[in-house]
């Protein structure tokens, strides 16, 4: 493998409101929410009802198809409500937290000494198993699979993305324990991919039992899918698992302390945040505990995750299971007179069709307006400019739309998930919801291929 993998296709969107590298301990939220909707294709079966008391690590629900996969509470407290949506689909299990967190004791262990079965069992019991994501399809990994390798992307290049090096500072021990545990789950390597532009954190570079790969280029170089494509692309039948670095640390902590300690560093960013910075909080927290008093609240959108792939939440919503970023941007629900004709000094575009091209370093305040009408999927050649993999994005999308499974397979559906198409969606002039199409394609593959 070359010393460094450089990609050229892609796009860095320069937005206002990057989080400053300051740590703040967030006030502990009163309410916590666990959202089954964070996990694709999950049919949750509840094990609690409103009024039940739970500890941090108590199961709240499990996967109907794979009952061994449990989803647990990040804090101790009382199950307050279960929010349901259409057709009684469970949207949120809300916990009212105690003042001090009581943990279930999962026993401390040296992961290096454990067998694969024991590691798996511990992750399943504690509710940390779902943090391992399987590719293809972007679903929770199957405990019975033996992945070809496990990949950890140690940097994020999405707009306003938090700095992972900053977030994992001082967590050498936990990270190593997490890696030791994960290495029991695969016969292959554990790849940790770092940004070659800055010297990466010693948490990553000093870890034992991993392979470090250096990457360089514009977003989506930080996306784990892009990285896998250049390290060892996924073929039909391959299974690869991916884990986020902060979750590796949570896994490590589980083995070191015997607790499901869901503490997490989260960045609050976006143009509508008054002082964007980093917070120490807990997974599943009500985002108000972070945003209160620090956001211009008039007409804004809260997103758990990044601006390209995150989930829209209300201002009383909850931090997603996998997320370490909350973004707040203005809503764009207003008309703009002759907007398509304006010179557009303030309009960011991948094309140079607005005068904004004169200011390449400018930071933009972008709202959620679609900025145009929906049209038939139009070929502009732009997808190919922001999609670094050796895959034809437009042709793959069309194969998905016509549900041609054979063609989808041939064109590389196993190598992609929704987030890999986020930039295509951003630059698309026809304003199609492309990630939704990709998700449909992945769901179809799961149904048909099992």
């Amino acid at each position, binding site marked *: 493998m070359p010393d460094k993998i450089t990609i050229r296709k892609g796009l860095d*969107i320069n937005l206002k409101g990057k989080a400053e590298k300051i740590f703040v301990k967030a006030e502990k939220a009163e309410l916590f929410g666990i959202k089954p909707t964070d996990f694709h294709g999950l049919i949750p079966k509840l094990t609690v009802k409103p009024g039940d008391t739970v500890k941090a690590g108590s199961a709240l629900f499990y996967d109907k198809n794979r009952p061994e996969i449990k989803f647990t509470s990040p804090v101790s407290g009382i199950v307050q409500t279960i929010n349901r949506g259409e057709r009684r689909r469970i949207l949120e299990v809300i916990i009212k937290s105690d003042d001090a967190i009581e943990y279930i004791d999962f026993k401390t262990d040296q992961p290096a000494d454990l067998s694969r079965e024991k590691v798996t069992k511990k992750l399943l019991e504690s509710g940390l198993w779902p943090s391992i994501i399987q590719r293809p399809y972007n679903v929770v990994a199957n405990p019975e699979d033996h992945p070809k390798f496990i990949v950890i992307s140690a940097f994020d290049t999405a707009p306003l993305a938090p700095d992972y090096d900053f977030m994992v500072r001082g967590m050498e021990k936990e990270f190593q324990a997490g890696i030791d545990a994960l290495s029991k789950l695969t016969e292959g390597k554990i790849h940790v991919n770092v940004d070659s532009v800055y010297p990466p954190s010693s948490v990553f570079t000093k870890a034992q039992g991993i392979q470090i790969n250096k990457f360089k280029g514009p977003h989506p170089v930080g996306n784990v899918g892009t990285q896998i494509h250049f390290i060892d692309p996924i*073929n*039909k039948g391959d299974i690869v698992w991916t884990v986020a670095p902060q979750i590796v640390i949570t896994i490590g902590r589980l083995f070191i302390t015997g607790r499901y300690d869901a503490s997490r560093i989260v960045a609050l960013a976006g143009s509508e945040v008054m002082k964007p910075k980093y917070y120490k909080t807990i997974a599943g927290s009500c985002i108000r505990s972070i945003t209160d008093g620090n956001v211009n609240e008039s007409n804004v959108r809260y997103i758990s995750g990044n601006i390209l792939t995150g989930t829209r939440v209300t201002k009383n919503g909850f931090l997603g299971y996998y997320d370490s970023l909350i973004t707040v941007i203005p809503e764009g629900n207003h008309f703009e007179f002759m907007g398509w004709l304006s010179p557009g000094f303030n309009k960011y575009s*991948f*094309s140079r069709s607005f005068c904004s091209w004169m200011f390449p370093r400018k930071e933009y305040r972008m709202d959620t307006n679609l900025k145009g009408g929906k049209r038939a999927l139009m070929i502009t050649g732009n997808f190919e400019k922001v999609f670094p993999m050796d895959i034809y994005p437009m042709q793959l999308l069309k194969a998905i739309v016509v549900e041609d499974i054979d063609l989808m397979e041939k064109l590389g559906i196993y190598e992609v998930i929704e987030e890999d198409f986020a930039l295509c*969606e951003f630059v698309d*002039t026809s304003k199609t919801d492309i990630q939704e199409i990709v998700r449909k394609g992945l769901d179809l593959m799961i149904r048909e291929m099992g």
Partner: protein
Amino acid sequence: MKGLRKILDNVKPNFEQGGKLEKFRSLFDAFETLLFVPDRVTRSGSHIRDAIDMKRTMIIVVLAMMPALLFGMWNVGYFHFSSIGEVASKTFWQLFGFGFFKVLPIIVVSYATGLTIEIIFAQIRKHDVPEGFFVTGMLIPLIMPVDIPLWMVAVATAFAVIIGVEVFGGAGMNILNPALTARAFLFFAYPSEMSGAEVWIAGLKNGAGLVDGFSGETVMGYAASGKLEAMAYSPMEMFLGTIPGSIGETSTLAILIGAFILIYTGIGSAKIILSVFTGGFLMGLILNLFAVNDYMSIPAWQHLIIGGFAFGAVFMATDPVSAAQTEKGKYIYGFLIGILAILIRVLNPAYPEGVMLAILLMNVFAPLIDHYVIEANIKRRMKRLETSKS
């Protein structure tokens, strides 16, 4: 602008489903979205979107055509007054003004016909009005001879929009370039209005007051009839565009300005434009090698600045809908257009110009080119699978 918005908001319910003016929904929508970028927001996924939309894309292409159009207008005046021997006594604005009033009706007819049909189809299909015709409506006048009867423009436009686009399912689904479809229709249906020495200059046909011996023959005409030595146009004139021809095609310089706009904004494919020119140049060289007549021996580079070659390369071949869609395919597609255009132009006596046919032909073959490019990608993937198994 708030007042205007209020008026629109007030009348809008009439045009929505169940309203009394429901029949004009598409028309209203087209008008409204022209005035205001809608307030629709993203639902999920990418929460922010690029500021570019179809309207912006299309208006940039129209902008890129402006140098060719404005030059064409002036050129129409220039040749009209040259033909009656008055050019020396006219000012720049008189030349331009004459051309402006000759060309404007063609543009108006083209847009009026095309947009009416687009809006009717959008209404039937319950779609928004697509913007593709912004560009087509301007392309059609630019590739017409100036003396074309207006009713022919209307018929050709209607043919192009209905048979060229709508029967395939609307803008974005068509196989052939719509503007070239319009031109091809006229070329075969009314050849006398589309070729020969008399159609390219305003007023030449009725012949009143002509300077003795004035010929409206195009460079292509001279070349095809083997009378190149009688031609008085220098390569510089061909490049600047002071030669007779379709309204927008004559000035290679103006077209190159357009090409720069298209490439710089990222809207037109540089790959296609460059490979068309490369293909044309190479074919010119090949013909030079085997030259048995004057036409075959004209310098290869001169092929690129005469006739509709540059215009076709920049504005027609690059139409993203009818061109090859894969990046590698674009090179092949453009290259073959260049080769074929010059081949047809020089060797086929039935057609004085080959660009139109070359592009239409390659439009038809573009999906095949893409097919093979994608097959190669699939094969790479299959091979990878096999090596990983073994």
